[in-house]
């Protein structure tokens, strides 16, 4: 008897692609009952493990089952929100998923093997267990060892899929447990806090504003710290006090070149001392060259691309908001153009055939064809190895060639970025020659430097980085003595930090373990949706200036980037595609300003003097670390849920006692009443 295998993917597009590769030809799908998007594909395939099999490939649409509280707890007014920490939770199949579940049940009845083809991340693992439950409830034999397996794949390129199909692995229960824990915690904590906030605070707002809309004040353990970052920066900007500083500037005209020397001290915030030092320089009259050094320097090519980096670059260079960038990336993945776009890995595995990937990019006539050719003809250099590897997916890279003419303008920008980034990774670092000169003028040291870019290398394909030769330096030698052309004292003022931009916010969330590469964009979208923050274009001058500022910022961010970080994995998929309006092409960077409501909530909770304020990232960071512990088998699901619930319940109770503080903040900021 021929073995029957049921394959289930996470989305119809993946099912179609995999079916096409396994069947070796285009397979016609049959619509399932009650749903026009999901199809079943039937074909034969020879699996090494089970021999020739008759295969049905179908899909779900993200999560198959949902969770909610038992019916008696669903009505907001029907129970004390605090009860939700312990209220029973039921799993059920949503109305619109029922046809899909029914299809799985029908197919599962007669199959011997269940082969899970959901995306390979934690959410996917959990969805795999949901499918397994639905299938094995009908066909308990599928619970036996080896009867339910899963495929490990990172893109839907043919050879890769065939290889994945021939090497099934078991479902990772630990990862599924971590997601299950996260779902329960998000449900309990999100619901209890949201209900309490809305009932206790939302109602006074509603009354005051005399509006009929139910003002939902939502709380999410990721959302809130995200808002916290925005509010914190807002107050830093608002409270900022500018201060005057003084610096000494020295210039020297030599060989017809005007050289500017920077004071080694930078600047001082004390006028008297600055003037005294200045006088001592002038008294000395001449300056002496103490150091003249020329050495080779390089500008490193970028690291392989991760999700966070894609979002940040999308915001900075492409001026698109991160949610839109990720939506497009997801589409590219489903169409088989790029690898799985949710990854933390910034190092390429030794085994990946980079040359083959580059060769694909030499087709057609694109702006990067010539460069890709060059890489294959001697210009290739191994990509840098970053510090992170989530062991699930490689860095984001193009898997196939796509002709830009077939893409919309938006798609082109994102796709081109991914291709250029990949090619840049495989190119050489840019090379230059840097000359550093130090002089001693009186008791003070001054420095200048010059840069000559000798080889642009990766810069030729990656216009998002800038490195230009500076003005030539004249020839200085150690021991040279000269009289400066001009020396003067200058003053300036410190300027306030700027409001958070999206890449900065993503950077903060990433560094503090808030959200994951899969969800950060969603949390940001949520606080906009709830009207806790607004965005506006930063009023700034020319693009050039922006670039400089941002490259400074990037340097700082990279320098402080933490080691491979422990983060929980993404929250739900399926049903996200919802109301998204096309992002306007923004000229300036968008910055985040909290609304009075957002400020009131954060200030309110901060003023409660809780040991850990909800607007700070600490609680969530701990939760994410615990998720990781479940995945690594160091903690059980039950332990994590218990601990986290205890923590949040504790805070909840304290916060309840201090509701007047929250009310006061709302009155102050939302209603504008004096303190």
């Amino acid at each position, binding site marked *: 008897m021929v073995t029957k295998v049921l394959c289930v993917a996470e989305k119809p597009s993946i099912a179609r692609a995999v079916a096409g590769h396994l069947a070796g030809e285009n397979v016609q799908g049959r619509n399932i009952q009650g749903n026009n998007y999901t199809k079943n594909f039937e074909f034969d395939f020879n699996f090494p493990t089970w021999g020739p099999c008759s295969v049905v490939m179908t899909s779900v649409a993200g999560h198959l089952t949902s969770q909610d509280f038992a019916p008696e707890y669903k009505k907001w007014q029907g129970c004390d929100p605090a009860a939700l920490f312990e209220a029973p939770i039921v799993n059920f199949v949503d109305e619109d998923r029922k046809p899909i579940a029914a299809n799985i049940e029908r197919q599962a009845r007669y199959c011997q093997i269940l082969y899970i083809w959901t995306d390979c991340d934690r959410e996917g693992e959990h969805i795999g267990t949901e499918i397994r439950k639905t299938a094995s409830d009908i066909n308990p034999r599928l619970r036996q060892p080896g009867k339910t397996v899963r495929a490990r794949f990172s893109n839907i390129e043919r050879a890769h899929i065939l290889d994945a199909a021939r090497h099934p692995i078991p479902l990772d229960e630990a990862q599924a447990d971590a997601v299950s824990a996260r779902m329960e915690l998000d449900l309990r904590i999100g619901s209890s806090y949201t209900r309490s906030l809305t009932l206790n605070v939302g109602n006074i707002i509603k009354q005051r504003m005399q509006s009929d809309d139910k003002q939902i004040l939502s709380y999410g353990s990721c959302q809130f710290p995200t808002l916290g970052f925005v509010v914190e920066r807002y107050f*830093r900007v608002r409270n*900022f*006090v*500018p*201060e*005057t*500083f003084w610096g000494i500037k020295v210039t020297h005209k030599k060989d017809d070149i005007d050289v500017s020397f920077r004071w080694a*001290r*930078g600047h*001082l*915030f*004390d*006028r*008297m*001392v600055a003037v*005294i030092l200045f*006088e*001592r320089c002038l*008294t000395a009259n001449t300056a002496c060259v103490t150091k003249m050094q020329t050495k080779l320097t390089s500008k490193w090519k970028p690291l392989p691309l991760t999700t966070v980096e894609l979002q940040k670059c999308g915001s900075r260079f492409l001026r698109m908001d991160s949610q839109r960038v990720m939506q497009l990336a997801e589409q590219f993945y489903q169409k088989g153009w790029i690898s799985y776009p949710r990854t933390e890995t910034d190092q390429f595995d030794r085994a990946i055939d980079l040359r083959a990937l580059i060769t694909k990019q030499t087709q057609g006539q694109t702006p990067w064809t010539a460069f890709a050719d060059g890489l294959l003809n001697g210009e290739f250099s191994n990509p840098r190895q970053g510090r992170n590897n989530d062991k699930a997916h490689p860095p984001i890279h193009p898997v196939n060639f796509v002709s830009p003419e077939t893409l919309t303008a938006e798609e082109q920008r994102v796709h081109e970025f991914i291709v250029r980034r990949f090619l840049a990774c495989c190119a050489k670092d840019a090379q230059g020659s840097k000359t550093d000169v130090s002089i001693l003028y009186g*008791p003070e040291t001054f420095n200048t430097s010059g840069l000559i870019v000798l080889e642009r290398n990766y810069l030729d394909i990656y216009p998002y980085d800038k490195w230009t030769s500076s003005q030539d330096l004249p020839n200085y030698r150690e021991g040279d003595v000269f009289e400066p052309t001009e020396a003067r004292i200058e003053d300036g*003022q*410190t300027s306030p930090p700027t409001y958070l931009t999206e890449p900065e916010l993503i*950077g*903060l969330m990433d*560094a*503090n373990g808030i959200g994951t590469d899969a969800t950060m964009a969603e949390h940001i979208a949520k606080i906009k949706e709830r009207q806790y923050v607004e965005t506006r274009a930063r009023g700034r001058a020319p693009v050039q200036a922006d670039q400089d500022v941002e490259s400074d910022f990037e340097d*700082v*961010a990279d*320098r*402080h*980037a*933490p080691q491979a970080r422990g983060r929980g994995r993404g929250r739900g998929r399926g049903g996200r595609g919802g109301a998204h309006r096309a992002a306007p092409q923004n000229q300036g960077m968008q910055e985040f300003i909290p609304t009075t409501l957002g400020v009131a909530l954060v200030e309110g909770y901060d003023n409660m003097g809780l040991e*850990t304020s909800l607007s*700070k*990232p*600490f609680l969530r960071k701990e939760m994410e670390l615990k998720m990781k512990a479940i995945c690594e088998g160091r903690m059980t699901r039950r332990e994590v849920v218990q601990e986290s619930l205890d923590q949040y319940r504790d805070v909840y109770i304290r916060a309840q006692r201090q509701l007047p503080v929250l009310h006061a903040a709302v009155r102050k900021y939302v209603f504008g009443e004096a303190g």
Partner: protein
Amino acid sequence: MTTQRPAAAIPANNTAMNDIRTSIATHLASKNVPPTPAWLASFLPSIRTSTPLQALQKTALFRILATDITTTLATIPATSLPANIANAAVKELRLPGPIVVQVLDIEDIGHSRWSQFEALEAQKRGETRRGHEVIRVIPEEGNVPAPVNASAGPHKLLLQDGKGTKVYGFEMRDVGAVNVGMGIGAKMVLRGVTVARGVVMLEPGGVEVLGGKVEAWDKKWREERKEVLKQQAGVGLDG
């Protein structure tokens, strides 16, 4: 009637005690902190003559470093600041020293007051930042006061000698022990320093930090620091 002698009362003609007194006075003078007779007289009753001499010397030094030197040091012109030292009309003069001074105030003038204020606020909230990462600092068991970060500087100090003369000092080159964590009232010895326009130029070669602090001053200084920084920032615009 017997008169009760206080423990370790010193008979004026006790040779052993005289030796101790002389030895301590000499020791302190060698450390550039020669005590007044009054201070010595107040110190001696507190010691036990059975303690080894070296330990007594150390204790004496430790105690005197905790005092206000305008009341406890025997001063002579050679080891004091010139009266007109803070005169900005004098372009440059040199102090051979050795002159001992105490620190009345210290500022980090390499960083804006506002940024220093913000850093203290964050510390108070129990947070420190490592780059972008907000890390919660858990207070240690036993509630030891949080260590003050050593500041980067350069620093400007307000110094005072045993006679009470005050002068500013500027850290020309990094003197390790000088930072906002050092105690207010800490003592330093100046040798061969240059004074430019009434400000002493402090460099590692010319400064020996003896340490110590005046508890009452230090406590007050630290309590008021945030408020002072805030005000200084506010007037920053007026220079």
